[in-house]
């Protein structure tokens, strides 16, 4: 704590040198040097009392701001984590799930049309390749295995298309696949909105932390200024004491010299 760091001499000097009663006595002194010192001490005491109050107030403020900063950083961290979750959900829904639904819909369409949909075979292969690149890599699967699987799926689709009785089922599946793809895409979009809202909250919290940091720096500066006042007051007092002591010592030396001179003369 800054207050604890204050040199004890600086903090206690005015009280230690002259107490209230002593001050009154000193002000009533007939010796002008002592009276001057007492006046300066009185003025110093007022200055230091104000500065000391300021130091205490700023210390409290710094503690509060430190807590505010901590809270803001915590909020930022939590928002970032939540944003990460929704971001992952968005990429899974809008990317992986939508792609898989698309593949299922395409495969079902091929089966239902009995292989007539040749362009769709190409679409399936393309989709399979995209899935391979996207999902396979993420899951740690061998890309060649994924490609082979999608190719096999296409082949099975073409063969399966000859089973005319099942055409209704496959076309319904294709429809469900397409609808699901759209729904997954919409879900991905929604999750993206939530993720970025949290990302924005994290940025706001970071800004709040910065604001508290700035205020803390200001409070430090004000406390430093108050400490400077205390130091200056202590320095002034020390200087005055030295001067008065020197005056008294000169006076005493003068008296001794006069006495010595008188002794010599007689």
């Amino acid at each position, binding site marked *: 704590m800054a207050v604890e760091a204050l040199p004890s001499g600086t903090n206690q000097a005015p009280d230690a040198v002259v107490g209230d009663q002593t001050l009154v006595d000193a002000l009533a002194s007939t010796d002008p040097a002592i009276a001057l010192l007492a006046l300066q001490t009185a003025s110093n005491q007022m200055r230091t009392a104000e500065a000391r109050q300021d130091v205490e107030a700023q210390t409290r403020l710094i503690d509060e701001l430190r807590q505010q900063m901590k809270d803001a950083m915590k909020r930022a961290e939590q928002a970032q984590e939540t944003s990460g979750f929704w971001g992952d959900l*968005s990429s899974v829904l*809008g990317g992986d799930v*939508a792609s898989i639904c698309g593949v299922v819909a395409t495969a079902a*369409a091929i089966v*239902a*049309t009995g292989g007539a*949909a040749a362009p769709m075979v190409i679409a399936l292969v393309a989709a399979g390749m995209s899935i391979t690149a996207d999902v396979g890599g993420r899951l740690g699967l061998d890309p060649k295995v994924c490609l082979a699987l999608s190719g096999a799926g296409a082949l099975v689709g073409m063969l399966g298309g000859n089973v005319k009785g099942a*055409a*209704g089922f*496959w*076309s*319904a599946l*294709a*429809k469900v696949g*397409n*609808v*699901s*793809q*759209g*729904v*997954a*895409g*919409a*879900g*991905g*979009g*929604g*999750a*993206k*909105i939530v*993720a*970025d*809202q949290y*990302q*924005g909250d994290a*940025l*706001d919290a*970071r*800004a709040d932390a*910065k*604001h508290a*940091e*700035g205020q803390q*720096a*200001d409070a430090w*500066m004000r406390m*430093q200024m108050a400490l400077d006042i205390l130091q200056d007051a202590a*320095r002034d007092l020390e*200087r005055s004491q*030295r*001067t008065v002591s*020197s005056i008294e*010592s*000169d006076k005493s*030396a*003068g008296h001794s*010299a*006069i006495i*010595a*001179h008188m002794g010599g003369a007689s």
Partner: protein
Amino acid sequence: MNDIVSSDPTVQLAELMLNADELRAKCDQDDLRAAQQERRQALEQEVRALHEAADHMRTGAWIEGGMTALGGVATAMSYGFGTDATKVTGPTGDWGVVLKSGEALEKMSTQVGILVGGAPSQDDQADAKQAEAEASDAQTRAESARQHLERLHTEQDRTIASAENIIESEAQGTWALIANV
């Protein structure tokens, strides 16, 4: 700044030195105040830029996510309501238009999101970084001015102590002379 009142040349020199130190201290105090003011302003600018970045990010998210979601809903609806479950055909007619619109929305969403939210947000964050650097520079200047001020105070103390010693020696000499006359 004080007038030189002493007739003693040594004390006059000490007064001159103290006056010069006082002037330099005043300059340092001005520098310190200016640097602190600058730091405060830069920090305020940084905070403002970060809040603006957050706002832009949210706006971008609504645009991008909204377009994607709308596109997805359009796709789902066009397949759901615009196709026959017994035949494998894409949506036709009005639903075909809805499907194409949905697809277009989805394809455009990322770019529009970047244009409206992502890029301005990045700009704001860059501004915040710049303001942070300016605040840091101002802080360094303030520190430097403070250190200079402290050195000046030490020098002033030293000058005063030297002058005091000289005056005391002179006084002792005078008393010794008086005693020996």
